[in-house]
């Protein structure tokens, strides 16, 4: 139940951001600094989420099959593969490395 509450609050705040852009006078938001922070924060959060999902295991750092997934996804992106292929490459690399015995 607790998770539902945070989930619905996230949905409400997410819609709040979107609506804010439509309701607030443009002069208030047309601020290059705000726009820039929204952009740098998007990059920073996605980089952080990538690395957390690759090496964090609770509060410990672990080098396991997920590193292989990161490398495979990087190669797929380098080769301009579409998003879904990139995701499948990541899954395949992790599953394959586990089959070979690397946890």
């Amino acid at each position: 139940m607790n998770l539902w509450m945070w989930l619905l609050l996230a949905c409400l705040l997410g819609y709040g951001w979107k609506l804010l852009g439509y309701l607030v006078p443009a002069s208030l938001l047309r601020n290059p600094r705000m726009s820039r922070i929204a952009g740098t924060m998007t990059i920073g959060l996605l980089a952080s989420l990538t690395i957390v999902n690759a090496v964090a295991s609770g509060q410990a750092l672990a080098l396991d099959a997920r590193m292989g997934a990161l490398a495979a996804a990087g190669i797929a992106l380098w080769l301009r593969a579409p998003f879904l292929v990139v995701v499948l490459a990541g899954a395949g690399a992790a599953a394959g490395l586990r089959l070979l015995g690397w946890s």
Partner: protein
Amino acid sequence: MKLLQSPAVRVGLSISIATGLYGVSFGALGVTSGLDFWQTMALSLLLFSGGSQFAFIGVVAGGGSGVAAMGAATLLGMRNGIYGMQLNALLQPRGWRKYAAAHVTIDESTATSTGQTDPDEQKRGFWTAGIGIFVLWNIFTAVGALAGSALGDPKQWGLDGAAVAAFLGLLWPRLKGREPVAIAVVCALATVLAVPFVPAGVPILIAAFVAAAIGWFSHGRSDEGLEPDVDPYAEHHQHPRQDPHSEEDGR
């Protein structure tokens, strides 16, 4: 007028299919992160913003708390406010349309709309991409969530690896030039350094504040990082949109 002859509608439909399809990966990762089917669906129906949705399940999957998941999702949603402002000036929706437009204001619908020059085409592009992605994204989230729950042990199928790949795939189109790469590296480093010392989920929020500080104190492109995950105009893009430093293009 024949809708399918409108270039904006055609771009909107193809971006809907491309983006909608990867709803499968969100659905599958949602149920394996620890959310149930309806929680996963609620994110696609109500939050409806790929980056924020993946952030929420990414934090939950890593053992983070609901508050941390909400925080990461909400911070990633800030850019939609900037898009809303641009689209409000461009499309000037009235009455209930304003509230509907807000809900489908995401990277891809904004990019489809702002890539057109004719005001009618901008409207058609926005609504086609917005509604098209919403419908397909939710259908494919359901498909992925049902398939994900049938898979059994998610690690055996490499689904934790799929999550890593999904985040890198979302980050990649935003790494145009040296500066965004530097921001990404600094934030990744800050995250790794923070992991052993703070509860799960919090390192992501620390990285967000590092990134915000970089944005506050540095002077770069004001639309840096505001690129769609799937570029609707990839085929006819000579240069990225509104990029004053085109020599920085390319990675």
